[in-house]
């Protein structure tokens, strides 16, 4: 499973980093930075929560 983050859409709410800090971090300005882009199936629910919580719809998961 691959995780992606569109920094241009990001509005620095930090919700992803609070819900799944093992994958999502924040820069100085609060925008998202991916700690890694690969994730396994066991992480799906937790990462989907972060994706759903993003107010800017800047995150996505894909089966790749």
């Amino acid at each position: 499973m691959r995780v992606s983050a569109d920094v241009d859409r990001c509005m620095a709410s930090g919700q992803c980093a609070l819900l799944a800090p093992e994958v999502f971090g924040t820069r100085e300005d609060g925008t998202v930075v991916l700690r890694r882009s690969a994730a396994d199936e066991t992480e799906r629910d937790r990462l989907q929560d972060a994706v759903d919580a993003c107010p800017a719809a800047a995150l996505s998961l894909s089966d790749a």
Partner: protein
Amino acid sequence: MTGPLTTVSSLDLSAGRFGRSVPWETFARLRRDAPVCWYEDGGCWVISTHALVGQVNRDFRRFSSASGIAKPGDPTRGRKRVPVEMDPPEHTRYRSLVNRSFAPSAVRSLAGTVERITGDLVGAFRAAGGGDLVADLAGPIPFQVMAHIVGVPVTDATQVTAWGNTVTSNQDPDYRPSPDAVDRARRDYTAYCHAVVAERRSAPREDDLLTNLITYQDEDGWRLSDDELADYVETLLTGGTETTRHLIAHMIALLAENPAELDRYLDGSLDADQVVNETLRMASPVMQHGRTAQEDVELAGQLIRTGDRVTLWMVSGNRDDAVFDDPDRFVAHRDNSKLMSFGSGGPHYCLGAQLARLEGRVVLEHLRPVLRSIEVGAPERVWSNFFNGVKRLPVAIR
């Protein structure tokens, strides 16, 4: 008024002005002529375009929440309210303790509770042939849901709602009949929140948000103080009730004013989510919040100085035609991905956004069978330049 907005004496953003209506034309002119405008009477900058509201909201380093967001910090408090009056990294620590409880998955698990509460209240409303939508539905539904989450008795609704009405930002004579009414409400509400914490400390509950906050300890042994715990209780109770109440009331009022859109919801062309989102955009229950500049910042040709108060008007950004076509029309199928009703950037994005949407959807769906046969009276507005609030909304079910 004609001509460019050059004098600030023509600008009236007082609570009383909003008690009549939201000054939509004023915001349109500000967006066009003075998107960063010094408002003398308010002692603050007024930021009104979608782009600039979002930009400043995201810029939490230069525009801080630490001096209060509704008005300059109450000097008698002497400490910052948790977590709305904090900036990262301090804010992050406090926000992280509650975030998971309001994550999309947590909100989905509350759906049954929201359905039950809404079903009971809508059932009673229908049986009574209607009433005051605010007192009978729009207020009680979010309160009872929040009471469930925090773990306070539903019977506390009247008192807690009254305190919330008085302490949140307004100049409404119904809610603030005298200056000492505000001080008294603040004192009593705080005492109540402390009592809730004390009760929970003595009788902890399983799987309980407040119990988890009380027992939380980080790896250095740091725990939340009683003041901080009481702040959480108050923020959750108020944040979850003052706001969603207005969303629900505005939604019913807007559907009554837009019968073609109501038809499209009833025939299935629109879903509840779309109606809720368009209501959020049109009504913006939280119209603005303030920040304090931490350094001199040049913005849209204006110089904002260190210490200046800056107010960000989401209610105006939500009507910006640079982002939303025909912004003053209720068009529920539009792309609302850029609505700013829950915040437009930065870490203070509404904790309860998903929960608010769920409550809006559920009440709409429960009212669906009677939406064609209701008569909605004129909303009575709250005198507030913070909330776009409805005090009373008479609804008769024919």
